[in-house]
């Protein structure tokens, strides 16, 4: 099923007709000849294909072509005339930071995305900003130094020329800004392809929930949010034969974040990047999200996708499990609230019916506010790492001390001894579904501290019997050992 996509590419309108599930990377390179966008892996793991989508860094290999309809795409070619590029160019040259050059277009876009938001980044911030852009040649030092130097030069120029708009430019941002503002179709098409003519030619990009639900009820559709899962599998097309992608990123209802009492209602379509920008989100969720992949994946991937893809390795999903979230599924026939534990039927399988959308995640925050928490992720490296084992724990006591002062050690007497009011633990990447067993944690709930301490071995033994990890990139024994180590450390620390 072909659709027509119209978007701004480096400020010029492009109209293209083709498979909406095609990778933006292939569209740019093969169909539009933008070979400055490099291809290193086709699965989001190297950053060579980085572009800006509406000003935000993404991996073009994980973006469906249909998704970019009415968007602005910026490649390296779109930056070459900006002040920021000039500064980066000079600094990269001075540090000989360009070796084989294959990672460079992606690096520059990552640097651009960073400097637009953080004009004077620290070294650590620079490293995080390029952590999804692998470079096998340089060891990164020269690149980091060059970005830093460029930032300093731009800041200096901005200070010197404060007031004058031509400097230190937000030239690059202007390119993007103009692009977004101009929206679609006011410039002549530069691509010699058929204009939108055929019926149903536009990609399915509803902006309101009812419209999306009608479509879902009527057709065989696969919701595509960030596409970071759907597009990551080279030999499995995002929409299988006979189905189509339904792009949900424009649906306002999926982008809302609001409080209802102490429940945080999180729109399923919020990306990790968007969530990290919000101060309200609980720290445990923030920590979980910050551990995911790297900026470009975080800018596209959504919390809803992390839950709906039903992977036991989902980091945001683990945070949702340990906080006992409820998921709100909506269809034309109505809606239902499903406790997270009941949502999953196995690896990759959920109770979601094809006509339903996951609209919101309802996260109770009472315990995250009152209690102590931990989120531990064991991956193979510090960025771009899928969990090999993960663990989250949440515990709360009734103590007289201020509920916020959770780190104060409760050195009370028997009379004032705190009691465990809540305990929740969850283990990721060990079974087909995240393991959360409230009945095991209930063993310690209601116990006074000293009593709870004596019951730790029993609690751990029960977990030991309950956890039957599967083998994956690491052995089952390792997984189990780590689970128990992390659980023990968490509970001992919490109860000491």
């Amino acid at each position, binding site marked *: 099923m072909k659709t027509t996509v119209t978007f701004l590419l480096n400020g010029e309108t492009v109209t293209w007709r083709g498979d909406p599930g095609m990778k933006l990377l292939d569209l740019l*390179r093969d169909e539009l*000849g933008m*070979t*400055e*966008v*490099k*291809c*290193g*892996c*086709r*699965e989001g*793991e*190297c950053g*060579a294909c980085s572009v800006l989508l509406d000003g935000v860094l993404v991996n073009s290999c994980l973006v469906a072509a249909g998704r970019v309809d009415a968007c602005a795409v910026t490649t*390296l070619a779109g930056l*070459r005339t900006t002040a920021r590029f000039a500064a980066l160019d000079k600094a*990269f*040259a*001075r*540090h*000989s*930071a*360009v*070796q*084989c*050059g*294959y990672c*460079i277009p992606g690096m*520059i876009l990552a640097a651009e995305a960073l400097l637009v938001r953080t004009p004077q980044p620290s070294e*650590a911030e620079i*490293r995080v900003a*390029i*952590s*999804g*852009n*692998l*470079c*096998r*040649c*340089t*060891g*990164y*030092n*020269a*690149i*980091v130094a060059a970005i830093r130097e460029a930032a300093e030069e731009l800041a200096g120029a901005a200070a010197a020329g404060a007031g004058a708009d031509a400097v230190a430019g937000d030239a690059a941002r202007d390119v993007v800004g103009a692009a977004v503002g101009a929206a679609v179709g006011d410039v002549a098409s530069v691509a010699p392809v058929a204009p939108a003519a055929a019926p149903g030619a536009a990609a399915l990009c509803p902006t309101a929930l009812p419209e999306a639900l009608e479509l879902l009820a009527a057709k065989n559709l696969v919701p595509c949010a960030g596409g970071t899962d759907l597009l990551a599998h*080279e030999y499995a097309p995002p929409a299988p034969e006979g189905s189509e992608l339904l792009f949900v990123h424009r649906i306002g209802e999926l982008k809302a974040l609001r409080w209802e009492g102490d429940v945080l209602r999180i729109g399923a379509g919020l990306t990790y990047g968007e969530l990290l920008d919000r101060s309200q989100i609980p720290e445990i969720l923030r920590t979980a999200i910050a551990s995911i992949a790297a900026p470009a994946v975080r800018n596209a991937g959504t919390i809803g996708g992390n839950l709906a893809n039903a992977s036991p390795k989902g980091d945001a999903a683990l945070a949702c499990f340990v906080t006992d979230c409820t998921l709100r599924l909506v269809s034309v026939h109505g809606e239902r609230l499903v406790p997270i534990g009941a949502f999953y039927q196995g690896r990759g399988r959920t109770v979601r019916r094809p006509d339903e959308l996951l609209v919101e995640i309802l996260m109770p925050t009472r315990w995250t506010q009152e209690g102590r928490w931990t989120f*531990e992720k*064991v991956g*193979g*490296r*510090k*960025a*771009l*790492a899928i969990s090999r*084992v993960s663990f989250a724990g949440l515990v709360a006591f009734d103590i007289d001390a201020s509920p916020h002062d959770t780190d104060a050690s409760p050195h009370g007497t028997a009379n004032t001894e705190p009691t465990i009011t809540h305990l929740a633990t969850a283990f990721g990447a060990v079974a087909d579904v995240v393991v959360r067993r409230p009945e095991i944690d209930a063993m310690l709930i209601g116990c006074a501290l000293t009593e709870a301490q004596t019951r730790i071995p029993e609690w751990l033994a029960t977990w030991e019997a309950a956890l039957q990890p599967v083998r994956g*990139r690491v052995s089952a024994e*390792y997984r189990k050992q*780590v689970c128990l*180590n992390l659980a023990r450390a968490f509970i001992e620390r919490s109860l000491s």
Partner: protein
Amino acid sequence: MGQAASRTASHISQSVVKKDHAEKMGGTALYVGDYPQQDMLHGALVRSPHPHARIQDIRYPELPAGYFTVDASDVPGENIAHVVLDDSLVFADGEVFFVGDVIAMIVGPDRREAYRLARATDVVYELLPAVLTVADAQEFFFDYRYGSGDVQAAFAEADHVYEEEFETGYQEQAYLEPQGFIACFAQDGVLTLHGSLQCPYYVKAAVMKATGLGSKAVRIQQDHTGGGFGGKEAFPSILGCQVAIAAMKAAGRPVRVVFDRREDMEFTSKRHPSKSRYRAAVRDGRVTALDIDVQFDSGAFTTLSPVVLQRGIIAAPGVYRVPNLAVRGRGARTNKVPTGAFRGFGAPQTFFAIELMMEHIARDLGLEPLDFKRAQLVERGDATTTGGRYHFDVPLPQMLADVLVASDYERKRARYAEEARVRAKGACERSEEARARFRRGIGLALWFHGAGFTGSGERDIIKGRARIHKSAAGQVEVLVSQSDIGQGIKTTLAKIVACELGLPYEEIIISNPDTARVPDSGPTVASRSLMIVGELLRRAAVRLREEWREGQEQDVEEHFVEPDFLVPFDLETFSGDAYPTYAWGAAVVELQIDSLTGTNEVLGCWASLDVGTPIDQAIVLGQMEGGVLQGLGYASMEQMAADASGRIRNNSYSDYLIPSAVDVPELKVQMHVTKYPNGPYGAAGAGEVPLVGLPPAYLAAAEQALDGVRLSHIPLTAEETLKVIVR
């Protein structure tokens, strides 16, 4: 060193804007996958899913119009992909020897369709027994031995005898740009190939043999190449033959094969896994003899194994003065992907073993490894392992001093030892410290890297020639077969020529090599390009300066001449100078281990490296930092193995992890300079040395953090670490 050299040597190291900076920075540099599509045909390879099998039949699917097949029956010349020896085939002929062995190619206008047809090709196999581990190997491609002194006597007289086995795993080059070629057989009968490669003349020789075409009819051009690290040294000769033959069937249309990441990771050459047994005799606190048996897993064909193995065993005794040596090295034939060149070329495997062996002996003797090692370092004038000489200064003591200061090694070493003592004591008392989650350690390693080819390769085989062309208008062009794969060779060579001619560096022309235009100045390997070809060019430039005629076109060519101080090397007996000089390395790694999960985090890494005069400070520093990080990855996260069916499943960037920008933020390299008089301005070989010694430094640090346990292989995984902690 001539006059001009000393006049200019002081500023030759000053960095310039690299020759290829602008086009790579702006994204206009074309890599092989970037050439426009029109007219292009795409090839997809049909590969064996079995490690060893007889081919009974190849049944191609029905091919749509415009598609054709290429297999052994299409090879016009010899069905041989020439590397060092002639055992690699272009297309399998009746038998396959590893998972991924290439049987045929399907070529057509649509890449996806070609891949689909390749997958749909039904090959009927009769399965044969496969050898998947070195331990099971029945056949060794090579079996080298050398030695010196009286090993038996030394062991007989020893105070202590130690024996250990060490293992290293695969390491994948993981260059960002996968391998690829475009080939076109033009109407004039010239077959042109261009692609991602290190050695155009290697590819040319191989293609001539497989196609039967003459020298004038085969032309190889290097495209901008997105990293090599050895991975594009020999493998392109094989892929090049396959694509060349496809092009000869394509009636003048270009044929492109560009691998995707998985195909590249799974089926192209990688570092040899190794297994080494070391026996050491110690008397009066010194190692008096080493008896070493090294086995490399060569995979199914010899490719570069002989030369990798030679370098590996020559380095096997390390940087120590050991009077009695017995060294054996074998390359095991297994039914796995042929292993080959990767930065360090056999030496990282053996330096890993000797450095850890020294570490373990020292600790057993109750000595600090630092002191034990420092007391036994080779010095200028000493014999090398093969009875040559260390002709020049051995700067290790000074370099060691530098990294000790930079890393604050001794204080940290003592502090972490104290932490371990407290842990050991507290383990019984269940104290807070004993249960401290993170454990720290610091370790060091010392090494060399022989500069240039092993033995007399330059003199006997390569016979490099380098040319400078001057146009009538006075424009100067450098003509050599060196390929810039990121290491900056175009820049450094141009600097040398500019410096001698007194011309602005920017005015020197140097392009990616094209065998139709450049002489064979040898391959871009073995840390030789700058040292050997750079010196040839320097000499050519001196001559051109002296013979300069205004308004006339001139060509000046220089040929390799063996330095006269060398003790000639004999490969039969492994005797003589294996290398004219050495690059040196000293590194300290500090790390922290999470005792709950076994994960390791590098807190800091400090290296001092001596590669002679850096012809461009920033370029050399970049080489060093990149190499050091690869070495740290090799020790830790870079894990790859063939499974019980002979398949490598770590074939993507999500399953084969290389360090990201946040993994080792504290990586500090300093340069030490010992000038090599026969290299341009004192430059020696730089490319490979930085990687070599990092794994043993990493493991030494891990051993301290793990309370002195003895580790014996890399990569050190979190899983193994945790086992050690639990035990």
